[in-house]
């Protein structure tokens, strides 16, 4: 016992205890912010929490806010919340990445450190990829496109949760519920559980997303890259990391190693971002250091300090040079030029239905120039109608919301997408305004419609039409039926001037396969 007290009293041990406490503190902050992010994710729904609250993570992200500012050329007051993150970075460096970023924490959880075998070291030059991505994002933003923001860590995580994790989890729970419900002894418990869990945590209906495997695969790859190196994504790829890294060069607090370091390299192997360089006296690049504090404890002499000071960090070999910057800029411009000479840019895709009002507020309907790809609208949509676009609107439209009526209709009683959008890429329409917002126009395919072609009464489209005056009207007409007899049939007609394009007719059309009534884009700009 006495011995122990002796050991604890030694100065080195006190320092080590302190350093362990730092790591614990970081982990607490990490798990807490991840938990908050997840709760806000779950509460991003109709009947959930206020948009001011659920939009907070996206608004704290300076990459999203800066790119949005460049692309939309309009300043949103709420965007200035991102200054908090910038301030944090200027004081502490990339502490956001080590302490706050929910994707970073997820990557720490899925670190696969036990499966990581011996591997070839990855070239330091890979670190410049994140800067290249950053430059590409900002260049594209300057020219009015934000599709690369699909690679922002917050939108990436939010979209993966929305489009892959939640639907799969929901499916597993639903199927389990359905199976257990068959057991009489459990059915009451299952019903009670279901009422408790829905809609509070899981959606009441199953979720379906097109190209779900693509979105799941992107997320899986980001996680799996951890097999190659800890926090592979954060080191080499993350464009937000790149932006914060640039700011970190001027960070006030820096990691310093004081003499007499004997070069044991323990800190180097402990560093999750691999930035402690034995060649440079165990110094680290502030643009790479996430202030995770993992290097403190291994140091046998407790020589590592984070000390204040004003200076700019020295450059690194992998920093983007002028040629890289110009090449990236040039390639981005070429890519944009290609994308804008895609045939889609001349003739808009006929079924590109955007959320209510989005067509009106975005200069470019294909690319949805104000949309930061956060997927909050997709998450909040109660009818699962909004889907992240893959190639519907060309490469520039990637990740922006598109309404697919056959998968879900725009609910006449809902305006939640415009409410949750953190950047007004979908305008915050009141319910009355939204109910009059035209998002498309329905057309009947008379060659397939049950009433028109089979001469049977169906009327489902008319019945479902939510417009008070009914944008679909039925005309009773005598027609020659199959066995050469006169039959009276109710033929649906769309009153185009009343139709708002909500798509419930297309969704509910009982015809097999493609609907006999389809919602087309509301107008087409004739290219001559």
């Amino acid at each position, binding site marked *: 016992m006495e011995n122990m007290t002796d050991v604890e009293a030694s100065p080195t041990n006190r320092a080590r205890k302190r350093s362990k406490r730092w790591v614990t503190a970081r982990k607490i902050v990490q798990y807490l912010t991840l938990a908050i992010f997840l709760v806000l994710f779950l509460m991003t729904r*109709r*009947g959930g929490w206020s948009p001011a609250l659920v939009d907070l993570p996206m608004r704290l992200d300076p990459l999203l806010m800066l790119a949005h500012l460049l692309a939309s050329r309009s300043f949103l007051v709420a965007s200035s919340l991102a200054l908090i993150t910038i301030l944090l970075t200027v004081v502490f460096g990339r502490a956001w990445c080590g302490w706050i970023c929910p994707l970073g924490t997820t990557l720490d959880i899925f670190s696969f450190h036990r499966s990581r075998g011996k591997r070839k070291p990855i070239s330091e030059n890979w670190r410049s990829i994140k800067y290249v991505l950053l430059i590409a994002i900002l260049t594209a933003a300057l020219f009015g496109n934000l599709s690369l923001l699909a690679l922002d860590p917050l939108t990436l995580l939010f979209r993966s949760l929305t489009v892959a994790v939640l639907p799969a989890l929901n*499916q*597993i729970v*639903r*199927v*389990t*519920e*359905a*199976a257990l*419900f*068959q057991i009489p002894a459990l059915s009451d418990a*299952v*019903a009670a559980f*279901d*009422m408790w869990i*829905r*809609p509070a945590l899981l959606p*009441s*209906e*199953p979720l379906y997303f097109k190209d779900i495997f693509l979105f799941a695969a992107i997320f899986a790859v980001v996680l799996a890259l951890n097999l190659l190196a800890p926090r592979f994504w954060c080191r080499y790829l993350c464009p937000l990391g790149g932006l914060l890294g640039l700011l970190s060069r001027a960070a006030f607090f820096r990691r310093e190693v004081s003499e007499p370091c004997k070069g044991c390299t323990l800190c180097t192997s402990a560093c999750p971002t691999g930035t402690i360089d034995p060649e440079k006296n165990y110094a680290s690049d502030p643009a790479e250091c996430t202030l995770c504090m993992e290097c403190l404890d291994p140091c046998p002499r407790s020589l590592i300090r984070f000390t204040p000071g004003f200076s700019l960090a020295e450059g690194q070999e992998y920093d983007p040079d002028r040629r890289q910057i110009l090449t990236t800029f040039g390639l981005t411009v070429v890519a944009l030029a290609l994308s804008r000479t895609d045939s889609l840019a001349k003739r808009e895709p006929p079924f590109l239905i955007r959320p209510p009002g989005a067509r009106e507020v975005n200069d470019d309907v294909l690319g949805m120039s104000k949309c930061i790809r956060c997927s909050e609208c997709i998450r909040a949509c*109660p*009818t699962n109608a909004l889907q992240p676009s893959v190639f519907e609107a060309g490469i520039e439209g990637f990740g922006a919301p598109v309404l697919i009526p056959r998968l879900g209709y725009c*609910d*006449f*009683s*809902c305006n939640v997408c415009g409410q949750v959008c953190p950047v007004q890429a979908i305008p915050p329409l009141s319910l009355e305004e939204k109910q009059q917002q035209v998002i498309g126009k329905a057309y009947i395919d008379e060659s397939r419609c*049950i009433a028109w072609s089979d001469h*049977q*009464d*169906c*009327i*489902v489209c*008319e*019945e*479902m*039409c*939510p*417009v*008070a*005056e*009914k944008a679909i009207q*039925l005309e009773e007409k005598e027609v020659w039926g199959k066995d050469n007899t006169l039959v009276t049939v*109710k033929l649906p007609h769309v009153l185009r001037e009343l139709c708002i394009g909500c798509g*419930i007719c297309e969704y*509910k059309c*009982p015809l097999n396969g493609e609907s006999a009534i389809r919602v087309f884009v509301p107008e087409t700009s004739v290219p001559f």
Partner: protein
Amino acid sequence: MKRYSRRDFLRLMALSAGSLTFNQLLAACGLEPPASLPMGTPTSFSPTNTAVSGETLPPAATEAPHFSTDLVVARGSDPEEMVRRALAAFGGMQMFVPKGASVVVKPNICVAYNTYEYASTTNPWVVGALVKLALEAGASQVQVFDFPFGGTAQEAYVRSGIEEQVKAAGGKMMPMPDFKFIETEIPGGVDLKTTRAFQDALDADVLIDVPIAKHHSSTRLTLGMKNLMGLVFNRGAIHTKLGQRIADLTALFRPTLTVVDAVRMLMNHGPSGGNLDDVKKMDTIIVSPDIVAADSYATTLFGMQPDDIGYIKAAAEMGLGSSDLKSLKIEEIAVGG
């Protein structure tokens, strides 16, 4: 590059095959109900009969109702009082709801778009009154639910005003999860032999059907029998041969009591409505243990005949009730001033 051994290859194949079949497996093990499941039991309108699941009753149309009257029409300005007085004319709610019975009240909450003034959803005070009366009669619990076709149930429950009145009356607004829709045989079904029916409605001792009387472009009117469509899963499949199939659903659910809310009637642009000009204030409530009779009488409020409505005709032909208004004992009461 690492060479793959046969074991690695097999493991990979097993994994991929597993991931491909997983979904089907999940779906298959959960959603196909075993054939031996007890089928839901139609509830009879005889007041002494509280059906329990397990036995299958034949259509009970031949049973004579034990009341001095077949149908009560109440007219007045206070919906709650009208319901109370109309039921009093049958001897009170306890004639239909035995002590300890579990009761389901099924209103029409077809869309989440409008408040009750637009007459697309049942009057909330009519629903609330039924919940209250059922509880007063000694019901162990009263559950209320519907399955809207436009918008979510949670939103529709709130916007219709029904949730507020049901909760105030002591009832429960319930969700309708998929897994409670179970493939069920329809005894005596003419066109529809089986359907995925909501189990809580079948299991309830007493089912009270509370439609709102309104226009519908296919069946012409949405009344009590049409309102039962909210209790089945695949309504799209029912839309052809709608008249007969609605009658078949009536044979399955056999509500103990039907209360047609004609306080406000939607005269056009149903079932969703949305325009007050289409709403007619009728201040009427029709109550009958015979759903066919209740629906038949309601047609007259629209200036129609029972036989104008396909499902009424079909149900009468199946012997599910009487559409012959002349032969029915109808009591008309005026409530309040």
